[in-house]
Each structure stands twice: as structure tokens, then as C-alpha cells.
């Protein structure tokens, strides 16, 4: 079904229904055969059921996937970022062999060559700072200096172009010399405002950016193709749609870094709050803009600096939650589903996140290490919840341990619907038999 002409006039609840229906009806997707189409519809239905807090025909089972498909297929983690044939083969084999209820994105790994061209400093990736058999890892630093909050607040895009990006991409360092684009006012301002683009070293930076763009375009084209192949040949829907971030994680994760943002909480509390408020609209726009009609109407948030260990509940309420709630409510208004991945734990935040301003059946909460019995107590009937199957068990446990832990979680959590199974942290390592046991146990479970 195409996007309704009067979509903008619909209520948030109607928008959500329209988006869910377009996704379940696989707008724009042709399947290999009718059987695969039916499988897609069944999986999308049970996922939609749990999002809408209904009891599904069976509990959906997902695999939060990191680099695991590559060692499983006999490849390295580096292959995932450099060899798109191997990327496609490994992702297809992984999905065909384990048959989870949703597609793990082949877009997670990124184009390694583009990162090389850009001299990307923010991450170490396989074969480039960490071993070829290891996932990429963030190399935190103060890419935004402590006294630069006012510059960021004044104009975040200008700050990114002329300060932040020249620091995280070595190849773009010359861009720090550019004047702001807002200088380009009347005719006499244009020449002085753009002559920098004639300077050889700035042209060189732009050429590298264009080169990285070409590489990324080729990569992106392949990723879309790989994903489409998995969906159509295996009858598996995507469940993660767009992507956004908690506003405080914007300065916290990649600009100031963990240690500095946690110190800023004491040294620059007002600046953190101002930056988070400034980022709220940007993160809302990102979530809405990247949502595709016919795709899953979810917007995925990896939540970082608000975890239990990083601040008190009072500080969570003061620093982290208000701007995050603004973004969530904005997405819900657009008929989109905030899909919150709580990394670490939220044991001390469950009464804060179950905010009465957030309507029931409009969010998904996916937990890493939070106590799931407490989660059920607080979230049941209000939001879809999932997670906390220990990734450690998939790698270091036995098949029997995996089965028994799965059954225990299902007994504890699945009874009233609104729940699906997923491992707590993205999977880089596992014993294949354990992963099969994990998927099978959930699929066999009767609710």
C-alpha cells in the first residue's frame, strides 16, 4: 500500500497503524515464492503483535548480531568491511542456517576502504588498529574541547564541518580553515567566502571526501542488494528501521568521550544540559528523515551514558531523560516507534522510563543486563520488552544450559505477550550448536 495522500493529517496512532501495515504488507518487495511471502507475513505479524502488546502466535526470536556471521562462515572480521562478496555470502549463510525472525543488518560494518581514505581516527577497525579477527572499537578522545560547548551550541552543523570532522577524519583536517557558509551573504561576500575552495590542500581534502563517497556508494548499493536478497529468499523482515541517538550521547559518546562527559557532569553541568537540548531536534529530525515507507517503522537508539553505573537516578532525570523523552515523543507523533537498546543496565531507572506521557504500545525496550523480572513488572501492558539473554552463554555454555536458560526466561516473561527473545549484547562469538538451541527453544515454546 502506498503512503496515504492525507498521511500528514492522520493522528499519531493512525500514522503508526499505516506504517505498520505498509511494512507488514511488504510494500515494494517481491518474494522468491509464495511460501517465503507467507513466512515474511507471519514473522512481521508476530513482531507487530508484540509491539502492540498482543499475544503472538509464537514468541519472536531475534539475534542481535555483531561480527559473528564472519568467523562462522570462515571469514575474518576484516572481510566484513572490505570484501562485499564475502559480506553477502556470510550474511546469507548466517540467516539461512539460524533462521531468526528478523534480518540482522549487513550495513553494520561499514566500508573499511572509505575509512582509510578519510583517515578515520574515531575507531580502530579489523586490520587497522585491532586484529583482523576483532570487531571495530571506539578510540575515544576529546574531539570537542571542554571550552567549545558554546561554539557547538551556536551552530552545531558549522561546528561539525569546521571543528569536529577535521579532527575525526585526518583527511579532512584542511576544512578547519574554511570560513562559515553563513558568510556568503551579498555579492561582495561571495569571492572572499569561497576562494578557500581553490587552495590545493583544501581541494585535496575534498577529492578524498569524493573518493570516500564513491567507495561508500558502491558499498551501500551492495548492502541494499544483500539485505533484499535475504528478505526475499528467506522471508525475513527487517525490524530495525531508522537510527538515532539519545541527545546526551551526542556530546557524550564521540565528541567529549566517556571520561570527559562524566567529569563535565560536575564541571559543566549547564553546558551538558544545553547541548542535549540543542541535539534533541537534530536527533528527532534524523530519526524521521531516515525512516523509509514500507520499512519497519522503528527508530533504533543505542543508549549509552545514562546507564545505572554512569549516574544516579536523580542525575538521569536531570541530564539524560528530558531531551531523550522529547525525541521519543516527537517520533511517536510521527507514527514511529522508538526502539530503545539499553546497554549496561537500567535497574534503577525503570520507574523513570515508564513515563505516563508515553502512550502504551508505542515503544520497544531492549535490555542488555537489566533484571528482566523487574522489567516485566514495570513494563508489562505499557511497552514491548526484550533482551538479557546472556551472550556469554552462547559462547561459553552448553546446549543444555542454553535451552534451560531460554525456557526460564520464556516462563518468566512471555506469558502475556508484548515480549520477544533476543540476546543482550551484540554477538561476535558463539558456538553454532548453542545458537541453534537458542532459536529452536524459543520457536518450540507454546504460549
Amino acid at each position: 500500500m502506498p503512503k496515504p495522500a492525507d498521511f500528514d493529517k492522520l493522528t499519531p496512532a493512525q500514522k503508526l497503524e499505516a506504517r505498520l501495515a505498509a511494512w507488514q504488507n511488504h510494500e515494494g518487495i517481491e518474494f522468491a515464492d509464495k511460501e517465503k511471502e507467507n513466512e515474511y507475513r507471519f514473522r512481521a505479524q508476530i513482531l507487530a503483535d508484540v509491539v502492540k502488546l498482543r499475544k503472538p502466535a509464537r514468541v519472536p526470536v531475534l539475534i542481535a548480531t555483531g561480527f559473528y556471521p564472519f568467523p562462522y562462515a570462515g571469514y575474518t572480521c576484516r572481510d566484513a568491511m572490505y570484501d562485499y562478496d564475502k559480506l553477502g555470502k556470510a550474511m546469507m549463510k548466517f540467516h539461512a542456517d539460524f533462521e531468526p525472525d528478523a534480518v540482522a543488518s549487513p550495513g553494520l560494518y561499514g566500508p573499511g576502504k572509505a575509512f582509510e581514505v578519510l583517515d578515520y581516527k574515531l575507531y580502530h577497525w579489523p586490520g587497522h588498529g585491532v586484529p583482523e579477527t576483532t570487531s571495530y572499537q571506539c578510540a575515544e578522545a576529546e574531539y570537542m574541547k571542554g571550552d567549545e560547548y558554546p561554539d557547538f551550541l551556536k551552530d552545531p552543523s558549522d561546528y561539525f564541518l569546521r571543528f569536529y570532522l577535521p579532527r575525526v577524519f585526518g583527511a579532512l583536517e584542511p576544512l578547519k580553515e574554511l570560513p562559515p557558509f553563513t558568510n556568503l551573504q551579498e555579492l561582495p561576500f561571495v569571492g572572499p567566502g569561497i576562494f578557500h575552495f581553490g587552495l590545493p590542500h583544501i581541494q585535496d581534502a575534498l577529492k578524498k571526501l569524493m573518493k570516500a563517497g564513491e567507495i561508500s556508494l558502491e558499498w551501500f548499493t551492495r548492502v541494499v542488494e544483500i539485505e533484499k536478497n535475504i528478505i526475499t529468499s528467506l522471508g525475513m523482515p527487517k525490524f530495525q528501521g531508522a537510527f538515532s541517538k539519545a541527545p546526551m550521547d551526542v556530546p557524550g559518546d564521540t565528541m567529549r568521550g566517556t571520561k570527559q562527559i562524566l567529569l563535565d557532569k560536575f564541571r559543566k553541568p549547564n553546558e551538558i544540559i544545553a547541548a542535549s537540548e540543542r541535539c534533541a531536534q537534530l536527533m528527532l529530525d534524523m530519526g524521521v528523515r531516515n525512516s523509509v515507507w514500507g520499512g519497519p517503522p522503528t527508530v533504533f537508539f543505542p543508549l549509552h551514558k545514562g546507564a545505572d553505573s554512569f549516574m544516579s537516578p536523580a542525575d538521569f532525570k536531570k541530564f539524560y531523560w528530558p531531551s531523550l523523552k522529547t525525541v521519543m515523543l516527537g517520533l511517536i507523533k510521527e507514527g514511529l516507534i522508538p526502539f530503545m537498546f539499553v546497554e549496561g543496565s537500567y535497574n534503577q531507572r525503570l520507574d523513570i522510563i515508564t513515563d505516563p506521557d508515553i502512550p502504551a504500545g508505542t515503544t520497544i525496550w531492549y535490555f542488555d543486563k537489566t533484571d528482566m523480572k523487574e522489567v516485566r513488572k514495570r513494563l508489562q501492558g505499557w511497552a514491548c520488552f526484550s533482551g538479557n539473554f546472556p551472550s556469554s552463554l552462547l559462547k561459553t555454555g552448553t546446549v543444555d544450559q542454553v535451552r534451560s536458560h531460554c525456557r526460564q526466561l520464556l516462563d518468566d516473561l512471555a506469558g502475556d505477550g508484548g515480549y520477544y527473545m533476543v540476546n543482550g549484547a551484540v554477538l561476535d562469538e558463539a558456538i553454532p550448536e548453542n545458537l541453534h538451541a537458542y532459536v529452536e527453544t524459543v520457536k518450540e515454546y507454546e504460549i
Partner: protein
Amino acid sequence: MSKELIDAVVDMREEDAVKIAEDLLNSGANPMGVLDDCREALGIIGSRFAAGECFVPELILAGEMLRQIATLARPRIQQSGSAPQQKLGRIVFGTVEGDIHDIAKDIVVFMLDINGFEVMDLGVDVPAAKFVEAVREFKPQVVGLSGFLTLAYDPMKNTVQALKDAGLRDSVKIMIGGGQMDDQVAAYAKADAYGKDAMAAVTLAKGWVGAK
């Protein structure tokens, strides 16, 4: 003892704490006494952390305050020739091979240090052979293996095995910790224990060296 200094550190008043310490040192206070006050304050913060009343940012800021105050006190300690504090034991600590995460490791190393241990910090992405070499030379009672990712499981196991192969396994107790670690991983790696946070690491290490 300066209650004023202890309170300032415990209450996370960074500027006050550094200023009070500086004034004390300038007025001729014993620099070891000033550091003892800081240690007492850190003990209170550690207990609050263990009780879930304060959090990682407080530990990091406490570390920052202590670093600044120690920088002020150190030249005066050298002048006065005060004897170094008796240590509870020695610990070799590092993030295992393939993992470059250092924040949690740094906090644990700091808390072990402040609680009276002599810690050799090997840094991040530490190969098993480097742990073996450090254990052989430094002769610790305890080895701490840190790792954030699931990819750290095997390097942890390999490190324990390498210590065994070198005939050093029985001379040390081994603890693991970090993001995706748990008791299950400790058993897999054949470590002696998993510690869920910095204070758990202190408790484990103290237990192993027979300290209170």
C-alpha cells in the same frame, strides 16, 4: 586530619578540595597526612559506590582530585623523606589482547591502588605473553584481566592458559571483569573469579592477600 578536606573530596567539590589541600600544604601540613585524608575520603566514596549510592563519575572525579592533590604533595614528600606506605600486595592488570577499552580498567587500577595495592598496569590490547613476562618479573599475588567485548572471552582464556604453560598459574589468583563478563566467562577462562565493578575487584584482591 582535615575534616574540611575529607568533606570536600567526598562531596565532589573539586575546586574546594584542591584549594584546601594546597592551603594545608602551604601552611606546613605533613604531605603524607594530606594524602591520608584523601585516602580516607576515597574509602568513604568506595563504600558509597559499593552500596549503589554513588557511581562511576564520582570515582573518576575522585581520581582527578587525588591526582591534582598528589601532584602538589609529591615534591614535599620527597623533601621530607617520608617512608613509603606499606603495600598490601602486588597486582598485574591489563585489558586483554584485541580489546582497546581502558576506562573501566583505569578505574579498577585506581581503586586497587588507593586501597593499598601496588599495581602494574600493562595498558590495553595486552598479549598473553606480556602478562606472563609481567608475572614472572613483578611476582604479583593477583592478576586482573579486563575486557569489554565478547571477543575478549578467548584472549582471557588464552592468557590464563599461557600463565599455566609458563608454570605461573598456581602463584597467582586471577580475576576478570568488564562489560560482557560474568561468572560464566570466569569459569570458561578458568579464572578464579569475576568482579562486577571496581569495589568488587578490591574485595576480591583483599580476600586473596588476606587483608581486611
